[in-house]
C-alpha cells in the first residue's frame, strides 16, 4: 500500500553539523496495517513521518502510495490522502474556532472550499454522534472555542477530524506524548477503536514501549535510520517489554562500543 524504496536523507549537507538520517532505507506497508514505530532519539522516527507526509523532501529514493509515485508531491497534495496527528495538541485544530466550526472544516476535506456557507445546521446530529463515541462530553460543547479544551480533548477532537475525511493513511506522531498518563490511555483507546472501526492503515510513532506492544499488528524499531527490529503477527504478540528493553539496550551498547 505504501512503499518506501531506497530513501536517502541527509540534513545540513556539507556543513559541520551534517546529519545522515536515512541511507537506502526501505519499508513496505500493507493495507490495513497498524504499525507502531519505536526508537531512541535521533533514530529517524519523526523524519520518517515527515518524509511520508511530504514535509521533508528526500534526497534520493521513491515513495509509492497505492501504486502511485508520490515522491515529488508537495505536502498539501499528499495531505489530500494522508492525515496526521502531531505531538502538540495545538497543531491539529483551529484554536479560535468552535468545535462545530472545526468539524465543519474537517468534514469538507477533499471538497471545494468555495463561496457557500460553511456552517450547516443539519450537521449537528452527525457531529454529536461523532463526538459521543469519544465519551468526553464534547457533544455538549459544540459551540465552545477549541482553545478552551484540555490537551486530551483537543487531541481526541483532532483525531476525529483527521479520520473524518477517510484518509488512505493515518500518521500518529507521538500523539499522546504531551498528555498525562490517564488521558493518554483514553486517547489511545479512542485511537484503537477508530482505527479498527474504519480499517485505517496507520503508522504510530511512540516513545511508550507498552503502547507499541499493546497496539497494532506490526512493530518496527528504528536505530540510526535502520530497521533493527521488524516483527508482526504471532511474534509481535509474544514480545514482552523486558525483551524489547534488553534488545534496545543491546543495540545502544553495540553502537557505543563499535
Amino acid at each position: 500500500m505504501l512503499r518506501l524504496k531506497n530513501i536517502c536523507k541527509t540534513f545540513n549537507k556539507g556543513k559541520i553539523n551534517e546529519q545522515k538520517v536515512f541511507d537506502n532505507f526501505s519499508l513496505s506497508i500493507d493495507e490495513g496495517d497498524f504499525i507502531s514505530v519505536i526508537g531512541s532519539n535521533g533514530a529517524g522516527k519523526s523524519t520518517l513521518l515527515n518524509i511520508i507526509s511530504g514535509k521533508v523532501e528526500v534526497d534520493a529514493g521513491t515513495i509509492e502510495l497505492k501504486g502511485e509515485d508520490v515522491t515529488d508531491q508537495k505536502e498539501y497534495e499528499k495531505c489530500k490522502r494522508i492525515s496526521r496527528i502531531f505531538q502538540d495538541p495545538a497543531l491539529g485544530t483551529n484554536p479560535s474556532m468552535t468545535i462545530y466550526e472545526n468539524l465543519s472544516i474537517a468534514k469538507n476535506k477533499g471538497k471545494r472550499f468555495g463561496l457557500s456557507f460553511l456552517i450547516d445546521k443539519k450537521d449537528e446530529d452527525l457531529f454529536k454522534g461523532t463526538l459521543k463515541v469519544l465519551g468526553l462530553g464534547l457533544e455538549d460543547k459544540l459551540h465552545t472555542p477549541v482553545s478552551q479544551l484540555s490537551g486530551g480533548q483537543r487531541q481526541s477532537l483532532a483525531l476525529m477530524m483527521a479520520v473524518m475525511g477517510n484518509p488512505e493513511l493515518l500518521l500518529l506522531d507521538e500523539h499522546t506524548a504531551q498528555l498525562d498518563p490517564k488521558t493518554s490511555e483514553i486517547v489511545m483507546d479512542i485511537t484503537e477503536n477508530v482505527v479498527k472501526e474504519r480499517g485505517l492503515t496507520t503508522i504510530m510513532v511512540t516513545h511508550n514501549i507498552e503502547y507499541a506492544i499493546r497496539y497494532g499488528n506490526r512493530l518496527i524499531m528504528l536505530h540510526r535510520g535502520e530497521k533493527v527490529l521488524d516483527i508482526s503477527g504471532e511474534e509481535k504478540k509474544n514480545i514482552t517489554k523486558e525483551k524489547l528493553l534488553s534488545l534496545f539496550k543491546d543495540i545502544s551498547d553495540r553502537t557505543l562500543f563499535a
Partner: protein
Amino acid sequence: MNSFVLGILQQSLIFSIAVMGIYITNRILKLADLSADGSFTLGASVSALLISKGINPFLSLIFSMLAGALAGMVTGILNVKLKIQSILASILVMVGLYSINLRVMKGMANFPIFNYDNIFTDRNTLLVAFIIVAICGLFFTLFFRTKFGYLLKGIGDNENMITSLGINTGTIRIFALSLSNSFIALSGGVLAQYQGFSDINMGTGTMIMGLASIIIGFNLVKHIKITNSSICCIVGTLLYRTSIALSLRIGFNPSDLKLISSIIVLIALTIGNSKEILIPKRKFKSLARFGEGFREVGSKNA
C-alpha cells in the same frame, strides 16, 4: 448636524473601508502588511487619474480596487513564492508604489480633480459613504462565513491544520493580501473623490491608523457585546477619528497629527495588553464558567 461632527462621520466611514482591509491581514492572517500605505495612495491616484480622463467615478473605484489587488498580489508573491518575510515584502512593495503612484499622477505630487464630477456630486455625502461602507461590511461579514472565508481564518489560526486538509495555503495567502489591499485602495479612491484631490503622501500612516482603529474597536467595543467584526472596525475608526479631530480642536497643529496618532496607538496597545487590569471581573467570570479541568488552558489563553 454641525459640520464638525458630520466631517468626522463622513471621514470615519471612508477610512473604515481601509480598516476592514487591514483587519484581514492583521487580525485574520496575523501578518504585518505595510503595503497598505502604498496601496491606499494607489487607489486614490488611479481613481483621480481616471476621473480626469472622464471615466465614470464609480467605475474608477473598481479600477482602484483592481490596482490595489494587484499590489497586494505582488506582496503575496514576494512573501509566498520568494519566501521573503511578510513585513519586508510589504515594505518593498510600499516603497516601489511611491514611484508608481507618482507616475500614475503624471509626476505631480498632488493631483486635483475639483473640476470633475465625482460620486458625491449632487448627492448626500454621508449617505453615499454609508452605502459604500454598508456594501463592504456586508460582503466582509458574509465572506467570512463561507468555506473559503474560513480557510483564511484557519490559516491565521493554525496554518498546519489547513495544509492538512490538502489545501495550498500559499495561494490563499496571496488571495487574502489581494483582497485586503483592494479594500484599502477602494478607501483611498473614495477619499480622493471626497477631498477632491489625490496626494502622494495621503497614504502615509494608513497601516498605523488601521491598527489603532482595530485595537480600539476590538478592545473597547467587544465589551459591549458586538460580535460583528466589520461593525467593530467601523466603530473603532469612528472613535479613532474622533480622538484625532478632538486633539485638533484642542489646538494641536495638523503637523502634530502623526505624532498624536502614534501616541493613540500606543495608548490603545497598552490598554489592550493590560485588559485584566481594566476589566478584571468579566474576564475571570467567563473563565470560571468553563469550570474545572479547563482552568489551566483557560488562563494560558487569557
